[in-house]
C-alpha cells in the first residue's frame, strides 16, 4: 500500500516533469548561430553545383552531371531557405560572419519575390537539364544567375 502510494506519487511528479521538458525541447527554436550555419552551408552547396554546371558548359558537357547539379540546386531552392533568415539572425556568426545585409530582414515581400524568382528559374533549369540541349541549358543557367545577382546586389554585403 505504501509502495503503491509512493509509485503513484512519483508518477504524478515525474510524468508532467518529463513531458514538460519534452515540450520544451520540441519547441526550442534553433539558435541563430545554427540557422546562420545552415544557410551558409546551403549557399555553399549552391556554389558547388553552380560551379559544376559552369565548368560543364565551358568545357566538355556531361548531361548526367549537369542534371545532378541542377536537381540539387532546385532541391535547395525549394527547401524553404527563407526559414533560415528568421528574426534574430540579422547579425551574427555561423561558419563566418553573416553576409546578409540588415535590409534583407526589413525587405518584406521583396525578399519573397526574389526567392520566388530564384526557385522558378532553378526548377526550369532542372527541367531543361534533363530534357533539353546544352544551348538551352546555358541560356537558362544565365537566367538563374541573374536571380542570384538581383538578390546579391541588394542584400549581400560586399567584403
Amino acid at each position, binding site marked *: 500500500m505504501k509502495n503503491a502510494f509512493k509509485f503513484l506519487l512519483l508518477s504524478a511528479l515525474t510524468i508532467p516533469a518529463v513531458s514538460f521538458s519534452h515540450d520544451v525541447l520540441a519547441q526550442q527554436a534553433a539558435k541563430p548561430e545554427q540557422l546562420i550555419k545552415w544557410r551558409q552551408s546551403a549557399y555553399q552547396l549552391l556554389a558547388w553545383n553552380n560551379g559544376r554546371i559552369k565548368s560543364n558548359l565551358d*568545357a566538355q558537357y556531361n548531361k548526367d552531371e549537369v542534371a545532378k547539379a541542377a536537381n540539387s540546386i532546385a532541391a535547395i531552392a525549394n527547401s524553404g531557405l527563407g526559414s533560415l533568415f528568421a528574426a534574430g539572425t540579422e547579425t551574427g556568426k555561423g561558419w563566418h560572419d553573416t553576409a546578409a545585409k540588415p535590409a534583407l530582414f526589413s525587405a518584406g515581400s521583396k525578399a519573397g519575390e526574389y526567392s520566388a524568382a530564384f526557385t522558378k528559374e532553378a526548377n526550369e533549369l532542372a527541367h531543361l537539364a534533363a530534357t533539353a540541349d546544352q544551348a538551352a541549358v546555358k541560356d537558362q543557367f544565365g537566367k538563374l544567375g541573374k536571380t542570384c545577382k538581383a538578390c546579391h546586389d541588394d542584400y549581400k554585403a560586399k567584403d
Partner: protein
Amino acid sequence: MDDGIRTPQALRVWDLPTRLFHWLLVAAVTTAIASGLAGGNWMAVHGKAGLAIAGLVAFRLVWGFVGNRYARFTNFAPTPRVLKTYLRGEWQGHGHNPLGALSVLVLLILLSTQVGTGLFGNDEIAFTGPLAGLVSESLSLRLTGLHHQLAIALYLLLGLHVVAILFHTVVKKDNLVKPMLTGYKETIQETPHPTPAKVGWASLVFALATALGTLYVASGAPLQAETPSATPSRSGTDSSQPSW
C-alpha cells in the same frame, strides 16, 4: 608679339593612336558597364571587355611616356601651380587643359584598378576572373567588393567627364569632341607655332607590344600553358574521382 601675327589654323593635337585608343576605350568601358549590370551570361562579355580595357590602358600608359608631345604625361602634369594658373583663366597651352589632365590621370588609375580587381575577382555566382586562381578565396572576394565600390566612383567620374565636355562645348563654345575625332584643333596661334603631334613608329610598336603582352598575361593564358593538368575536369569523367 603684340603686332597681331595671329592666324586661325588647325593644329594637330591628337594623333591617330591616341584617338583610336580613346574611342575604343569608350566602347570597351560602355560594354563592360552594361554587361556587368546585366549579369547572367553577359558576364562572359564583361570579362572580355575588361581584357580589352587592360590592353588599351596599358597602351595609353606607355604612350604617356613615348608618345607624341600632347600625349605625354610630363607635358600635361597637372601640378598645383598649373592648376591655379588655369583656374585664374591664364593658362595658355594645347592638348589637355590642366583640369582635364587631372581627370585623365585619375580615370587611367581608376580603370587600371578596376581591371586589376576584376582579373582577381569572382562574383560568387558563375564568373571567375582569369587570375583569381593566383590568390586566396577571401582576397578574391575582398577585391570583388572593391570592384563594386570603385564602379560607383567610375560612374561619377565618367559623368563628370561628359558634363565637362558639354560645358566646354555649349557654354565656352569650345568643341572638344571634334578634335578627338579629326585630330585637329582650331586655334588662334601665336608664333612660334606649337609643334604638331607626330607619331614615332618605334614608339608605336613598343606601346602596341606592351598592350598585347598585358592582354596575354591578363587573360590567364600563361597560367594555363604552365599547368595544363592543374585544372581537373569536373565533368564526371575524370578518373581521379570516385565513380559515385
